[in-house]
């Protein structure tokens, strides 16, 4: 006979309470309460982040790694403490593997210029997917121009999923580097990155994951994934703009030359010979974004206080609800119907251009992104100039979904 076990259910996720942590959500837009459905472009910041930044700027700011005075020590402790916070958040082995950058874009460019450019040449291949954001296309095109290597693109299907079979066929001994999104920003598709990484490693290729849209919506463990490089942005993770992270495996980073030169990235400088600093500072020339790092660490504390898995489950419920609601509207076509999606709902409305839709929704206080989402090849694949995109964050509610549906009705009315 089975034991009578009662498992305590976790407390239900309370998005209404979470909303109180985000003062900007009280904003009125065009006479309506703000309905913020654009977190995939940039999320809002909770009070915990705003206060951490203010506290740092008010009490602890000086330059880092430079002074013996009290404030410089406090700033250094805050900045390096933030690095340790990031390490724990993504389960990196050591803080030497955590490079602070401006954002995902800079992280990818760093790998393109400091890893790929010195190593690749004619005959070598870089493999990406057709789902990529421009920031994970153009840096590799530049490397191809610089080195003579070739860019290969794995196709997607009509649901907006990577065609894994085709991807695997494009992998080969010439593949030196694979760069793919963890989650597509335009469609929300979750890519099978663990499988991709294993397959790429089978050919000795190094893998960079663009995690900008994944880190806010799932627990990312860079070691469990086996990623060689993993880049993400602070401002999509409820942290400040202008701060992001490039994770890199230590042995790869150690073998790479610096890519920007200046203060802090050196140990000694003479006109005859300069020696570079150790990891991670070798890649952080100049005074870094200290308050940004402090804010990002506070955002990670905040997310863990809510529970990353609980947020992800909540967002999945909203995505499913919104998908079901929009699927009932005959004039709406959902673009991107992958089996595994996160946070993002891209769509078009028959007879209404996405740009007009964006204006009409805005007049109702509903903020969505309209345009090509910096993923023009994805739009071209679907034969569209643009889509409207609603994206969900930890503070969105069923009410926001209802407001979206109502505002779409308004658009239908205007264009009736």
């Amino acid at each position: 006979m089975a034991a009578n076990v009662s498992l305590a259910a976790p407390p239900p996720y309370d998005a209404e309470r979470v909303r109180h942590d985000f003062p900007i959500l009280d904003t009125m837009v065009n006479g309506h309460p703000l309905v913020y459905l654009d977190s995939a472009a940039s999320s809002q910041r909770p009070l915990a982040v705003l206060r951490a930044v203010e506290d740092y700027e008010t009490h602890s700011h000086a330059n880092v790694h430079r002074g013996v005075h009290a404030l410089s020590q406090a700033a250094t402790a805050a900045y390096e403490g933030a690095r340790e916070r990031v390490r724990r958040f993504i389960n990196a082995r050591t803080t030497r593997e955590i490079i602070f950058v401006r954002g995902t874009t800079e992280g990818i460019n760093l790998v393109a210029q400091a890893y790929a450019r010195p190593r690749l040449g004619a005959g070598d291949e870089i493999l990406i997917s057709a789902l990529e954001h421009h920031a994970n296309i153009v840096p590799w095109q530049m490397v191809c121009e610089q080195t003579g290597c070739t860019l290969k693109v794995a196709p997607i299907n009509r649901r907006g999923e990577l065609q894994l079979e085709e991807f695997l066929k494009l992998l080969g001994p010439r593949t030196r580097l694979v760069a793919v999104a963890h989650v597509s920003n335009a469609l929300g598709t979750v890519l099978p990155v663990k499988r991709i990484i294993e397959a790429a490693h089978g050919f000795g290729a190094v893998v960079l994951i663009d995690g900008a849209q994944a880190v806010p919506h799932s627990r990312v463990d860079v070691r469990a994934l086996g990623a060689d490089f993993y880049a993400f942005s602070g401002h999509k993770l409820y942290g400040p703009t202008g701060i992001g992270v490039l994770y890199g495996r230590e042995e790869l980073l150690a073998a790479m030359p610096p890519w920007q030169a200046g203060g802090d990235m050196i140990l000694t400088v003479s006109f005859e010979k300069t020696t570079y600093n150790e990891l991670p500072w070798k890649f952080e020339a100049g005074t870094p974004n200290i308050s940004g790092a402090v804010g990002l660490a506070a955002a990670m504390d905040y997310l863990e206080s809510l529970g990353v898995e609980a947020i992800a489950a909540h967002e999945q419920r909203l995505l499913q609800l919104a998908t079901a609601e929009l699927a009932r509207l005959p004039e709406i076509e959902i673009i991107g119907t992958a089996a595994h999606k996160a946070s993002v709902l891209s769509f078009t409305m028959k007879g209404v251009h996405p740009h007009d839709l964006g204006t009409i929704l805005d007049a109702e206080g509903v903020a969505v992104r309209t345009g090509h989402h910096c993923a023009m090849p994805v739009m071209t694949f679907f034969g569209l100039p643009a889509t409207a995109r609603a994206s969900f964050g930890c503070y969105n509610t069923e009410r926001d979904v209802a407001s979206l549906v109502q505002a779409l009705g308004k658009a239908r009315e205007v264009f009736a």
Partner: protein
Amino acid sequence: MDLKELYRDVILDHNRHPRNFGSFEPADGRAEGHNPLCGDRLSVFVRMDGERVADIRFEGKGCAISTASASLMTEAVKGKDRAAIRALFDKVHALLTRSDAAPDGALGKLAALSGVREFPVRVKCASLCWHTLNAALEHGAATISTE
């Protein structure tokens, strides 16, 4: 912010049934306009009779504001000479951007675009066709961009 001011009946009508839509070959002038922000693209074709625009067509994909503006423009400029078109463009530009722009009888149906000025991010949608026409008249063939 009043949506009815932006999406007036004239605008919605010209969006749904754009006038002078299409192309012709050969053309005395043609240009392509592109607004990379929203992906709008349109081409303008002109046939000249001396200084005068004898015929004009446009084609492309865009939002309601850009399609309607292009459609209204083709009706307004047909038969006018370059100098008159330039003067009209100046009036349209003032209409789109200046809150103190007085109603100008010379604008005719183009006055329906006055609601755009309350929506600054949409001004480029309405002005793209005019910049493109300008390029077609000035250079004969060109691609222009709002960015």
